[in-house]
């Protein structure tokens, strides 16, 4: 596709439920990033994939959060036992590679997660 896409656009769930958020990066981009943006804040790094592997997951807040990218393209962010504090916009970004001097991250429109 022309840009990074994310589905769903909005997700409302109840406390304790499991949710999956999907990211489709720009075709050919090998690097993929997940960020969380809380109200009134800038995006905060969660996890980075280079190809199929998670090269850096240091931003995941706890073990309820997990992400996969099994074929090196689409990625899914999974949140177990959701809590009200998980409510935020989850942004995905991709770039051609990562670690390169000219890598620019292109962002998707995000998924707004609301935990009731």
């Amino acid at each position: 596709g022309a840009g990074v896409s994310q589905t769903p656009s909005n997700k409302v769930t109840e406390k304790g439920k499991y949710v999956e958020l999907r990211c489709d990066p720009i075709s050919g981009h090998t690097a993929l990033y997940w960020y969380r943006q809380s109200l009134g804040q800038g995006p905060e790094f969660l996890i980075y994939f280079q190809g199929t592997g998670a090269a850096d997951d240091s931003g995941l807040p706890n073990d309820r959060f997990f992400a996969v990218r099994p074929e090196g393209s689409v990625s899914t962010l999974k949140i177990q036992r959701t809590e009200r504090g998980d409510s935020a916009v989850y942004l995905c970004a991709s770039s051609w590679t990562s670690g390169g001097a000219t890598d620019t991250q292109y962002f998707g429109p995000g998924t707004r997660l609301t935990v009731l």
Partner: protein
Amino acid sequence: AQTVTQSQPEMSVQEAETVTLSCTYDTSESNYYLFWYKQPPSRQMILVIRQEAYKQQNATENRFSVNFQKAAKSFSLKISDSQLGDTAMYFCAFMKQKPNTGNQFYFGTGTSLTVIP
């Protein structure tokens, strides 16, 4: 640790006028990159302009330019001839290059810019 500070939560400018958004950062790195991203209500983060720290010349993209002061760790964005479509949240971002584990981005808290007709 890297921090990015945007001290202006909200700003407004008259259409066709010029406005400057401030950003300061703190780092011990010598080689890094700085960005300004625009986030309209659609939530899509759009790259506005990028600056390499090793370049002394300030980056320019049409109506957007930066004033990069490396010693002061300051990176302000100037928008000339403001247009209604410039209304958005603007985020300053710092990127540390990490070839093995991925470039890491750090964002400020944003400045909400409103262009008044």
